[in-house]
């Protein structure tokens, strides 16, 4: 009959009205500043730098290779290499950044830097409450603000961090084994001279293209 659908509609809204006071599950709203949804693991907002151990300076994985700087589409990364090297996790001496700045007002959160980094150093952070009343200084993050411990990375991206940690541990074991082998080889009596092939005869270095400028 005419109007039966309207009555059904009225019953439905009345049920919602009463139900929303009785059962909390009906209300799907997340009241944001007080309540938050857990971020999915793959969420990414802006990059940060991972460091191992307790000292952000000594443990920083970044080797200032500048691949991220070159790949960054909006060019928001700025790196200056330090003159002093420091050992990395396998004991090899590596470069380190003297300056590592990210302008997060320019960063678009694409995550390309994290993808291209061969040292597992730059990863994507999930902080998003970055608004500020001050425009010029708060959005240019320096190395000190960007460096965050590996535990933090593990918390944000557990599976990525587990894979990275496993690979780095393996690298370390390999490096140690290699070092042991090298040490054993050094300790062992030298085999009778089978002279190594010497370095190839030097060829004159090719003249740099702008040599004339360099005078």
């Amino acid at each position: 009959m005419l109007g039966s659908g309207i009555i059904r509609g009225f019953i439905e809204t009345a049920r919602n009205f009463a139900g929303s006071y009785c059962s909390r599950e009906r209300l799907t709203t997340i009241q944001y500043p007080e309540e938050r949804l857990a971020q999915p693991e793959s969420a990414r907002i802006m990059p940060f730098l991972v460091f191992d151990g307790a000292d952000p300076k000594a443990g920083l994985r970044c080797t200032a290779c500048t691949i991220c700087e070159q790949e960054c589409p909006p060019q928001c990364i700025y790196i200056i290499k330090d003159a002093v090297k420091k050992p990395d996790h396998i004991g090899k001496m590596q470069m380190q950044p003297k300056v590592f700045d990210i302008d997060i007002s320019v960063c678009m959160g694409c995550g390309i830097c994290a993808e291209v980094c061969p040292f597992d150093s730059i990863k994507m952070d999930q902080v998003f409450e970055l608004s500020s009343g001050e425009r010029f200084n708060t959005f240019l993050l320096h190395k000190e603000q960007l460096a965050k411990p590996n535990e933090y990375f593990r918390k944000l991206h557990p599976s990525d961090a587990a894979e990275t940690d496993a690979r780095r541990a393996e690298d370390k074991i390999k490096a140690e084994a290699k070092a042991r082998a090298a040490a054993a080889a050094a300790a062992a009596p030298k085999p009778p001279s089978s002279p190594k092939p010497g370095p190839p005869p030097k060829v004159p270095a090719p003249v740099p293209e702008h040599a004339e400028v360099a005078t």
Partner: protein
Amino acid sequence: MSPLVAVLYIVGIMAVFGSAFALTTIAERKTLGRMQNRFGPNRVGPFGILQPMADAVKMLTKEDIVPSSADKLLHFIAPLVLTTPVWLNFAVLPFGDHVVAARFDAGLLFFFAISAASELAVFMAGWSSQNKYSLLGAMRAIAQMISYEVPLVLSTVTVVMMAGSLSLTDIVDAQSSYAFGWLARWNLFTPWGLAGFGLFLIAATAESNRSPFDLPEGESEIIAGYLTEYSGFKYALFFLGEYLGLFAVTGLGVTLFLGGWHAPVKALAWAPSIFWFAAKFAALIFVFIWARATLPRLRLDQLLAFAWRFLVPLTLINIAAAAAWHYSAWWGFQGAMATRWVLCAAIIGFPYVWLGRSLRGGSPALRKYTYAE
């Protein structure tokens, strides 16, 4: 009436219904939220009850924009023309025992005459804005209000016939006795009153431009209709005018069909009369909000067809039912009351079903999309 009492009435009505406006905005938003499984506003003050204050501050501090091509004078006075006469509606409503500002003999007539002024204001607003959406909204509003004024008035005619008076105080007095010694003789508890109340509610919803008849402000179609070019305080005045119109017509519904300020059962007659009026008023406002949360907006042709082909015939038939009820009042045989109920219900019910079936019109032919398939 002495001038002091008159001033008291004016101040009282403006204070009570002004704050009722503020309360209704927050109550409406909370209720709508709950009916859609949301919280509704809950940020300003405890449970969000201070939201109307925040809204008022927002409205008052907004820039008042007048389009450069607008008719400045009409644009300025349209909200005033809407809001000012609406207050007069409250003059004839009896809010309680001996609480009525003006005891008019033609109170109902006065009420309808005054509330027709809102159409003028709406068209002024739409015309003076020099905006196509405003004009479209205003034309829709005119078509709708004029169409629905007919069933609105016709549905109240039955009450006037039965009470034998256009005075709203007399109409309330006619509903003052108690049937079986306990149940109030409200007009609602008669077959013609029940049907008339339903028709009245539908027509009143359309008259006050509320969902599902809110075509003049259909956001998805014509921005905000005749309100498009209004901002700040003028917009707030329009809102105030619309809500006051709703309150007035709700108060009229309470007076005509729900026994005015009388208690529903005799045992509860000790409570103050104003309390009963307020309770019924709040319940009816809740029904309007409930309808807004439930029903989607009609199309303009559906709206007009509904008024002229469905509501108007039914209100006329309802008058016949009221006549049958009136002229069968002398029946004294056993079960006369039940027979009268069945008779009157049949007089209204059969045309209702028949109209509902014949106007349904089947499902439209499946549309062919030539370039989309």
